[in-house]
């Protein structure tokens, strides 16, 4: 249950961050609808944000491992 709660918290935090960051990157001037180029930008932005999250996670954990071996 604790495990699940953390997984849910991580997912929600990730969702919130993606919405914030991609809104900032892709919607420069909010207009009356989300046009197709904005949608395309959000889709790419979202994939890149998750790539970055995974890369940060990998880099950070390999660093922690290196430091614990010293």
């Amino acid at each position, binding site marked *: 249950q604790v*495990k699940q709660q*953390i*997984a849910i918290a*991580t*997912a929600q935090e*990730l*969702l919130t961050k*993606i*919405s*914030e960051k*991609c*809104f900032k990157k*892709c*919607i420069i*001037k*909010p*207009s*009356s*609808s*989300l046009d197709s180029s904005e*949608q395309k930008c*959000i*889709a790419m932005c*979202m*994939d890149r944000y*998750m790539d970055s*999250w*995974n890369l940060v*996670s990998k880099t950070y954990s390999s660093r922690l491992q290196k430091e614990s071996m010293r």
Partner: protein
Amino acid sequence: PQLQQFLQIETQKQRFQGLVHGLTDQCWDICMEKPSSRLDSKTEHCISNCVDRFIDTSNFVVNRLEKTQQFASSSELDD
């Protein structure tokens, strides 16, 4: 059950107001230039569009995550 329902409604209100604070913060930075003696219609449109597009963005992100199920694979990392 009445107390429970009351607390549930109040919790929802609190969540709602938290989101209103966050959206006002963000849309203020995007839409407000120099504060003037009243909220002009340009700024007004910008703010209501900003709120609606932000919700569109969140919905788009959630729907796309559910569709591609990248979500599932990304949350597998926790193990």
